[in-house]
């Protein structure tokens, strides 16, 4: 009897396995022909019937349905997958807002994020497997294009003229055009609708905790010397926090690609904007290497000095990103260099739930320069279009028409945008008599709670999104940019700090010059796509290798000058001039 039951169970399991396999294979089989051959979608929009019947039936049908811009309550929900080469938090499969979006817009996207690997490793692995997610946003777009893994979006873009004209200017679209004449991806970030409401400094800076500034009597801090002077004095007076945790003056994140926290402050200190891999001298229109500049050397000399004095976290160069975030979340780290998006979303939420924001643990940015009185360009005021990456649809996507329509919806449908960033009306935010959105303290607290985020919040952060003012002309597109929200969300020490410096928001605090960047900005969007096939690309890869190894050594060395000289020798052996020459050639196209 027992044996019989066991046999039945085994059979049932085997059947289940088989059917499961069958299911997963079906859409895959449909996929390839649908995507590669449904490119003449242009014709499908204009005529009711597709002119070419070459495309197989299912694909052709959806083309017809999805093409007209307005469509009420879609018949069925299409599930898409997306991979993003950034770390992120996966939301629950029954996430409430994701389900609402699925019901109204007919699309549900399962996002997966980078874990453990680097962006290029993850992209390479996906390519090697031949099984792509439906959407992808990678830092290595050129690899995907090289492998013919992406579908050209040009025709789709022209199907939605309103989207085309609002999302980018023709010049900006041109920047996305690849050497083969097609556009494969759309950058979802950095677009401002209407009046800018920017309140955060979503860039790099020397950050400092407000409790330090408060203790020091809100001094003016303009140079690295002044910055470390305040940190040192604070450490001497307050070796520990209230609860006995020892304070730490300064830490440096140095893991893999995130070593920009160590590497590129030199360009900012010299008064240049974040071109990333090089600096552009606007007067002579030449590319300069900040790695060897006097400003950069001075910056590392200062770090070295502070390291020898014991004010730099000795684990700086061995810690992982997770350890770094955990460290910041305790509130004991007084300062560091980082990008706002790299730490603030996680760390500020923790501060809020732990009550550390009330103790002045929040960070404010400082626009330091090598010497006092220089113009600083830490903050970028106009929209930065990074044409090196963005959201793309792969050849594995069974229904690219619907997929693209969802990208457009994300950008063009205010209701969808509000649902993603504000949440559900009456649950996550309220509307006052003037039509302004606001949140209660409880709602704000809930919004910052990670388990609530997984169960309820669905932002699809790598789909197109807007900064600035909403289409209703009153509210901000994102809660953190809503003036009332921004004010109410700040703990008292932060409010006092802003008041003391006469700053209304984070960009005021850093005080960068407001100007328009050159059309080449940012240069890193070009160098990101270099490959080792060209001498410049090889040099770029080797320079990165060298800097990864030597910059920590330079900071830790007992004899700075000797180590710096050694570093320069190794650095020059990588032939950086090849890289600079290729960057110069790109810059020359803008002359």
């Amino acid at each position, binding site marked *: 009897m027992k044996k019989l039951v066991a046999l039945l169970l085994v059979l049932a399991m085997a059947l289940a396995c088989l059917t499961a396999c069958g299911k997963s294979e079906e859409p895959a089989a449909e996929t390839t022909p649908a995507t590669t051959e449904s490119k003449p979608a242009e014709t499908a929009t204009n005529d009711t019937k597709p002119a070419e019947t070459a495309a197989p039936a299912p694909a052709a049908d959806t083309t017809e349905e999805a093409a007209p811009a307005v469509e009420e309550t879609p018949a069925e929900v299409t599930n898409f997958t997306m991979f993003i080469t950034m770390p992120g938090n996966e939301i629950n499969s029954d996430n409430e807002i994701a389900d609402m979006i699925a019901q109204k817009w007919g699309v549900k996207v399962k996002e997966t994020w980078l874990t453990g690997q680097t962006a290029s490793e993850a992209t390479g692995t996906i390519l090697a497997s031949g099984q792509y997610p439906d959407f992808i946003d990678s830092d290595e777009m050129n690899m995907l294009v090289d492998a013919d893994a992406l579908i050209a979006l040009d025709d789709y873009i022209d199907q939605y003229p309103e989207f085309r004209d609002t999302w980018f200017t023709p010049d900006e679209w041109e920047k996305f055009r690849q050497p083969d004449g097609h556009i494969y991806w759309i950058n979802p970030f950095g677009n401002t609708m209407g009046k800018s409401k920017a309140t955060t400094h979503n860039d790099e800076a020397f950050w400092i905790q407000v409790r330090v500034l408060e203790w020091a009597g809100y001094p003016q801090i303009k140079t690295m010397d002044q910055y470390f002077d305040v940190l040192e004095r604070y450490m001497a007076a307050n070796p520990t926090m209230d609860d006995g945790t020892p304070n730490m003056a300064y830490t440096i994140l*140095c893991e893999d690609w995130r070593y920009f926290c160590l590497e590129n402050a030199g360009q900012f200190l010299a008064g240049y904007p974040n071109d990333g891999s090089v600096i552009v001298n606007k007067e002579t229109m030449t590319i300069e290497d900040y790695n060897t500049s006097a400003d950069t050397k001075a910056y590392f000399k200062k770090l070295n000095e502070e390291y020898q004095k014991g004010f730099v976290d000795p*684990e700086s*160069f061995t810690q992982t990103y997770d350890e770094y975030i955990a460290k910041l979340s305790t509130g004991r780290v007084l300062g560091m260099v980082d990008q706002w998006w790299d730490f603030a979303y996680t760390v500020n939420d923790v501060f809020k739930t732990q009550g550390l924001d009330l103790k002045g643990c929040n960070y404010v940015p400082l626009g330091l320069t090598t010497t006092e009185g220089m113009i600083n360009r830490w903050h970028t005021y106009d929209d930065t279009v990074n044409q090196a990456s963005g959201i793309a649809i792969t050849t594995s996507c069974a229904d690219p028409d619907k997929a693209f329509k969802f990208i457009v919806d994300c950008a063009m449908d205010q209701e969808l945008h509000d649902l993603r960033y504000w949440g559900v009306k009456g649950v996550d935010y309220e509307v006052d008599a003037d039509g302004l959105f606001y949140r209660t303290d409880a709602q704000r607290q809930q919004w910052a709670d990670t388990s609530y985020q997984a169960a309820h919040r669905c932002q699809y952060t790598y789909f197109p999104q807007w900064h600035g003012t909403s289409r209703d002309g009153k509210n901000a597109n994102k809660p953190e940019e809503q003036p009332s929200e921004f004010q109410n969300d700040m703990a008292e020490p932060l409010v006092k700090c802003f008041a003391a410096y006469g700053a209304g928001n984070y960009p005021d605090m850093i005080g960068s010059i407001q100007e328009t960047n050159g059309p080449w900005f940012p240069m890193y969007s070009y160098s990101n796509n270099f490959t080792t096939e060209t001498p410049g690309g090889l040099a770029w890869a080797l320079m990165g290798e060298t800097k990864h*190894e030597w910059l920590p050594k330079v900071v830790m060395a007992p004899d700075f000058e000797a180590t710096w000289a050694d570093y320069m020798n190794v650095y020059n052996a990588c032939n950086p001039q090849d890289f600079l020459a290729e960057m110069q050639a790109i810059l020359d196209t803008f002359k």
Partner: protein
Amino acid sequence: MAKSAAMINAPRKDRKFTWKEIKRQKVLLIIALAVFVYGIVFYYLPLFGWATAFIQYKPKGGIFGSAYIGFDKFKFLFTNENIGFWRVMRNTFCMGALNLITSTFMAVFFAILLNEIKPTIIKKPIQTVSYLPHFLSWIIVVGILHSALSSTGIVNDVLIKLGVVDQAINFFAFPEYFWGIVAFANVWKETGWNAIIYLSAITSIDPTLYEAASIDGAGRWAKIKYITLPGIKPTFMILLLINVGNVLNAGFEVQYLLGNGLVKKVSETIDIFVLKWGISQNDFSLGTAAGIFKSAISILLIVLCNAWAKHAGEERLF
């Protein structure tokens, strides 16, 4: 009776290769064929991919659509000093050898110690506990190492409390510690598991030998030296030979997860090199070339060691 015994004892080469014989063994042959096909499909067909090393591989064109470049990638690999292939080879070889020596020694040592414990009620739990770490994935072992060796971790705590050092040592910042840490991690994780095979080898030693030795007045030490160690020597030799072929598989996860910019010079193994240049820098051909070279060296090592074993009259693989 005598006749059947003769048949059984008949030397194999006397058997004729006949259809009858094949028919008689068809079940065995079918089983062998399955394994043979498995070997072809999973070990030999993929070798076709080695062609990648001799062309400038582009995913778009595939193997047939990419330009033939001959040995350019190998030349680049061996002559370009900046990419540091020889350094990577050295790291791999040294870490592999260190791991092989420490883990083999510890496994034999542990197996003998365990064998000397007579009460099963103590012996069995120790054995079970000792091989449990084998089932942990490297990411977990690395996590444990990272927190144990951090400046506030248990190792530094103990060292400071004992007065050995007066300031926490940041173990991962010093290239000179790295190989040792990796070897230690390997020993910690695999000793119990590796000891199992030696334990079973010890069990198969004829107990009458020990009895005879006892009667002759041999103590524990003498019994280990003259009976146990010679008894496990064949097992030891075979395992050593197999593992020598694996020396260049010094590992990927440990070094990848424990490494950082400061120790890069000593931490990168061939596998990391292949990942970095093949996958990350998108130069599949270079990665493949490095992989081929690694395989070639491994085969060479195993052949040399086998020849040595043959020469010394020891147990050998082929």
